[in-house]
């Protein structure tokens, strides 16, 4: 990937990677860091290789997901203490909408697998096969987790649907 291709990927996918990271972490500051780090890694990869990445978004989302996992491992919070309630962030303006806070809260209430599947599919744009590969589970399992996640979200977010 040359410099121009890198810059295009950056322009095209920055917002999407941020949105995925926001949904996966529930925290705008973390999302910003994960997004920046993800593109640093793409930059490092790009500078060292002429080979094009076949699906840049899928590549970026997989990197972002690993960073999110790392972030949760490094933080001392137990999984259930993740920012799944109201989002606490200095960037209040970013999440000023009650609706967005509720969306993040509802995503935070999902099981880890359900959250992974729904964020990778809906915000990362990954196919079932790509999610299956990323999570090391079968495609049918992905389908079941997605279905349950959507059922939960529709119930919790009924007011806005």
């Amino acid at each position: 990937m040359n410099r121009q291709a890198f810059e295009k990927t950056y322009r095209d996918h920055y917002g999407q990677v941020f949105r995925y990271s926001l949904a996966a972490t529930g925290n705008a500051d973390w999302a910003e860091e994960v997004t920046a780090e993800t593109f640093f890694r793409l930059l490092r990869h790009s500078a060292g290789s002429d080979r094009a990445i076949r699906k840049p978004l899928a590549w970026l989302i997989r990197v972002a997901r690993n960073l999110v996992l790392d972030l949760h491992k490094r933080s001392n919070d137990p999984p259930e203490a993740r920012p799944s309630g109201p989002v606490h962030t200095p960037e209040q303006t970013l999440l000023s909408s009650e609706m967005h806070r509720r969306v993040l809260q509802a995503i935070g209430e999902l099981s880890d697998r359900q959250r992974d599947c729904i964020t990778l599919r809906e915000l990362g744009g990954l196919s079932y096969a790509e999610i299956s590969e990323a999570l090391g589970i079968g495609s049918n399992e992905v389908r079941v987790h997605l279905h349950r996640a959507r059922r939960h979200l529709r119930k919790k977010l009924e007011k806005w649907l």
Partner: protein
Amino acid sequence: MNACPQLDKVELFLDGELSIPDADSFQRHLDGCPQCSEELASLTSLRELLHSLPAKETVPFRTGLAGRIDWVRWRGSVSVPIRIAAVLVLGLALSLAANLYLALGASQGPAVETPAGLARLGSPLRPGEDRVHHIDVPVSEQLRILGEPVVYLYRTGSDE
């Protein structure tokens, strides 16, 4: 009312997971099935709601990400003679430094410690961690980098 037997295909259809012939066939089914149409509308609304989550406007590359990196040398941008010359100069400098160090006595002076706040390349930040980065590249790494076309040395400063 009994559930439509094809209701479970709605999500697959929405996610683009049906084959083209199956998707065409299901599209025709949707036209005559209010139950599946309603399900699709509801799932589409959910998708739109999720997509309404704020996506920070892309920071222009040159003022954003590039502004946090001292320099990046892209593959092939350094000619072989320059690399060889750089390795020779670095080797000479190392040799002089080693001699000087031995002459002054190895036990003098405190060990050089990594300044507080330094982060290794690629390590994700922890919540609340300072956003200032500096990648400390050891000499061995610099030699490796000079010998290879892969270069990504420093990123510094915050973009705030």
